[in-house]
C-alpha cells in the first residue's frame, strides 16, 4: 500500500514528464524507499495512477535489480557483482566469505533483519573489481579483510 505521502510524491514527480507512464521508475523508487520493498499493491496502485497496465509496472520493477519486488530486504542490502570482470578477480570468493561471516546464503537475510545478501550483474565499476554495492554506496577493490571491516562498521551502526 502506498502511503498518502508516497502518493503525493508520485503525483509531484509525474509533473516532470510529458507522459504519465514515464514516471514509472521514480514512482517505484518512492514506493520502495523507507520500506525497502515493492509490494503487489504498490504496483497496482502505481499502475492506476499512471494509467498503464499493472504488468508494465511489474516488468520495469523486475528488470532493474534495484527494486525489491515482493521481497523485504534487510536494513543493509549487500549486492555483490559477479559479472565477468569481478568474477575474474574472485567475486565468488568474496560472496562465499560474506555468506560465512553473516551466516546466510545468497538471497537470505540475517535473523536480526540487518543484512540481506544478493548478487548483481555488472554495476559498471569493472575498473575497481571486485566490488559490491550496499544500499546506495559502492565498495570497491574488495578483499576479504576489507569486507570484514565494512561489515564490522555497519554492524556497529544501528
Amino acid at each position, binding site marked *: 500500500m502506498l502511503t498518502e505521502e508516497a502518493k503525493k510524491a508520485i503525483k509531484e514527480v509525474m509533473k516532470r514528464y510529458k507522459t504519465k507512464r514515464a514516471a514509472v521508475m521514480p514512482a517505484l523508487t518512492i514506493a520502495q524507499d523507507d520500506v525497502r520493498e515493492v509490494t*503487489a499493491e504498490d*504496483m497496482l496502485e502505481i499502475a492506476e495512477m499512471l494509467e498503464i*497496465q*499493472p*504488468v*508494465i509496472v*511489474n*516488468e520495469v520493477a*523486475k*528488470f532493474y535489480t534495484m527494486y525489491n519486488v*515482493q521481497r523485504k530486504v534487510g536494513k543493509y542490502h549487500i549486492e555483490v557483482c559477479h559479472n565477468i570482470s569481478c568474477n575474474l578477480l574472485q567475486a565468488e570468493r568474496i560472496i562465499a566469505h560474506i555468506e560465512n561471516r553473516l551466516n546466510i546464503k545468497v538471497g537470505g537475510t540475517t535473523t536480526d533483519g540487518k543484512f540481506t545478501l544478493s548478487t548483481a*550483474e555488472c554495476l559498471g565499476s569493472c575498473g575497481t573489481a571486485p566490488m559490491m554495492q550496499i544500499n546506495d554506496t559502492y565498495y570497491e577493490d574488495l578483499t576479504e579483510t576489507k569486507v570484514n571491516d565494512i561489515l564490522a562498521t555497519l554492524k556497529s551502526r544501528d
Partner: protein
Amino acid sequence: MAKLTINGKFIEVKDGTLILEAAKQAGIEIPTFCYQADLSRIGACRICLVEIAGQRKLMTSCTTPVMEGMEVNSESAAVQESRKGVIEFFLSNHSLDCPVCDKAGECELQDMVYKHGPRKGSFKEKKIRFHEKDYPLSPVIIKNSNRCVKCTRCIRVCRDTVGVGVLGSMGRGAHQEETSFLRTYLDCDHCGNCIEVCPVGCFMRRPYRYKSRPWDLKSADTICPYCATGCTSKIQERDGEVVRSISKMGKGVNNELLCARGRFGFDFISNEDRLTTPLMRKDGELVPVSWDEALESLAVNLGAFAPERIGGIASARLTNEDLFLFQDLMRSAFKTNNIDSSARWNRDSVSAFIKATGINEGGVSLRGALEGVDAIFIVGTQISEENPVTDYLLRRSFDSRWVFTMIASARAMKLDSCAQLTMRHDPATENALLTAIAKVIFDDAGEKAAGLDCAELFKDLSLKDLSDESGVDQSDIGAAARKLFGSESATFFAGTEFLRFPDGLRGFSLLKELLTALGKKITVVPVLDRCNQRGAWDMGVHPAFGPGYEPVENPGLGNAGMLEAADARQLDALYIAGVDILNNYPDFETAEKALSKLQYLVVNELFLTGTAAMADLVLPVASFAEKAGTMTNQEGRVQSMSPLMKPPGEARTAHDIFSALLKAHDFEFNVAKPKGTFEKIQANVKSYADVELLNERSDKSLTGESGNTVSSSILEKEADEEDQTPAYTAEDLPLTLITGNHLFYSGMLSSRSATLGSLLKEAIVEINDTDAKKYDLKSGDHVTVTGRYHEGRYAVRVKNGSRKGVAFIPENFKTGPVNRFFRKGEWSQKVRLKKVDA
C-alpha cells in the same frame, strides 16, 4: 526494386524487403523465432543470422532490409556454426520435456533442433527453473515458462494486435519470464492468440491439455460460426470429440488471429444436450419419431395451410446453400414470401441497412478499404466485442499505417485507444449525430454544396438541437465534420446498431450522400454479428427480395409481422430453422404468445431451445463442424467449409432436410450435394457467378454488381402501435438499457459452450464509472435491474468512458435474457438499478 544474390541465387525484390522475406521469395528458408510477419520486429533471438559479403559481423535477416548488389549467404560455415550456438543457448535452460509437452510434434524448437541443432550441449550449469508445475493463467490458458525461448511473440501479439497488453517480460537475461502481472489470473480477451504465436509449449490451451498429439488429430478447414468477420480456422477432432480450433499465418482474413469464441467456443458441438432424433408432439409430449414420419408429417401439415398463413425464419448461421434451399422451399413449395433470416432485425430496417451500406452492390475488402484512405469512421457498431478480430486487424493495420480514426458509440470500446476522436452519444441518437456532422460539412462547403438536392433539408436544422439530442459536444461534431470534409476518401464501419435503431440510417445515408456529392470517395464496410448474415440476404431470405436482391412481387411479412399475425390468428404455421425466437426477439411476451397460438410449429435445431420446446415437430440438425457449404462474411467474401465429422445420432444437415422437402413437393427437384446447390446459386445470384471456390477455399470477394436496389423510404415500422402502459416516470427509471453481443457471448451457440461459459460465469449489467459512483456500485456488486416489464438480477461491471445514463446487458445469457425487458421490437428501455446483497 533491388537486385541481390542469396546463396548465389539471383533475385530482384521490392526496395525495403527484409532479407528474410527476399529469401523466402527465392525459395530459401531461414530459420526464425522472434520474427513473425505482422508483429513488430525486434531481432532478439539471433537464429536468423546471415552472412553479408563485406560485413564484418553476421546480421539478423529479420530486421535487415535488402540493398542493391547485396551478396547474402544463409548457409555459410559461419552461419551454420552460429545457428548451432544459438540453438544450444536456447536449450541451455529449456526443460526438454517433449514427452509430456502438448506442443511436441508441432514445436518450432523441436523441428529446428532436428534440422540444424547440435546433438550435444556443452553447458554444465544447473538449468534455471521458473516453477515446478505448470500454472493456469485463465480458464483457457496454462503456462510453462521452463520451455520459453524468449521470443516475446506472445507479448507483442497481445499488446500490439489484440490491444490488451496484459503480458510482460519479467526479469532479464536467462531469468526473463514472459507472463502476467505476478503470474496472476488474466483479465483479458482470452483470445488465445498468445497460445497460437508461441513457437514452443509455453502457452497452452487448457481445454486441449493432454488430450492428443497433433499427428493423431483429424482436421477440417472451416469458418468460425460466430460473427461475420469470417475468420477461417482448422477444427480438429480426436475420437469423435472436437478438441481444438487453430488458425494459421497466411490463411483467411484473420491469419493467425482468432477471438475467444472462434478459438474456444466450438465445444457446443460435443455438448451432450445435442438433439439426435426427430421429435414429434403426440398427446402433448415431444416423442422420438423416424425421419420418414417426421418429413412426411411436415410436408403434409405445412402444405395444408394457405400460403399467406405460413411463414419461415432461418438463422443467419446456416450456409448459403441451406439458405438458398430454404427460401426456395418457402417460395416454391409453400408459395409464401413470409420469410426472414433473423428474429432480431425488423424487415424494413434490414432493407434500409442494405441500401445504406451498399451490401447489394457488391463486396468490399477490409484491407482494400483501409489502403490509402484518409479517415476512418466507426459508427453504430461495438466492433471490439461484436467482431473482435476485425478490431485486431484494424489495430494491426494502424501499426503499419496511421489513419485518422473516429469512433461514435454509446459504450466505450477497446478500439477507442486507437482513435483520435471518440464521440459518446446517447443510445439510438446516431441520426442526430450524423445529421449534425453533415450539417457542419454542408455549412462549411458553402457554394459547393448549395446546389445539392439535400440543401433544402439542412436549412431548418439547428446544430445545437442535434448536438443536445445526441449528447455530443458541438466541438467534437465540428472536428469530425472538418476531418471528413478535409479528406479525399473515408471508410465507414457501420454495424448492427443501425439494425437495432434504424433511424440512424437516415443520418448515415445523408452524410454518405453529401460526402459523395462533394467528390469524396466513401467506402462502407458493414459490420455484422452473425457469420452468414450477409449470405442470408444475398440468398434472398427476406420478405421483400429474392436471391440477388431481386424485389419480389408481393413482399411478405418479416419476423415481427409474422409474430404479430400469429398473435392475431392470421398466420397458422411457422418453420423456424435454427433461431431461438423466444430468446432473440425483442419482446419475449409477444413472441411466446404468438408461438403458442400457432397451429403448427416446426423447428430445426441443435438443442431443445425454448422455441424448440414449443414446437410440434423438432428436427435435429448438423452443426457447422458436420457439414459442407459456403458462407459469405461481412465483406462479401465467399468462403467454403468442409465437414470434420458425422452429425450425432440421426441428426441431418439442414441441406438434406430442405432437399428432401423440396423433392417431396416437386419430383423433378434434383437432390444434390451442397456443391450442386452452389452452382444453382451461381446461376441465380449474379454477384456469385464468377466466384471460384479454389481448393474448396476461396478468398475472393464479391465484386460484381447486382444492379438491383432495395426499395427505399422504408423506415416505417411494420407494426406501429402506441404503448399504453407508462407505469413509471423518467425519474423512476433513470438509465437507458441497451444490448448487443458480449466478447464471450454471441448467439445461441455461445450459451451452449461450457468453455465460453467459464470465461464469464454470470449475467452482467454494464454501466459507466460516473453512474457507478452515483449509485455507489463497483464491479462485482449485484443489482436488480428493473424495467417496465421485467426485473432481473445481474452482476455489475463498470466500464470507464462509456456514456453516462446507459446500462448494457448482453444478449444471450441463459439466465437473465435481456429480451424480457423489451417490448414491441424496440431495442431500448428505461431501467433502474438497485444494489442487492451478494
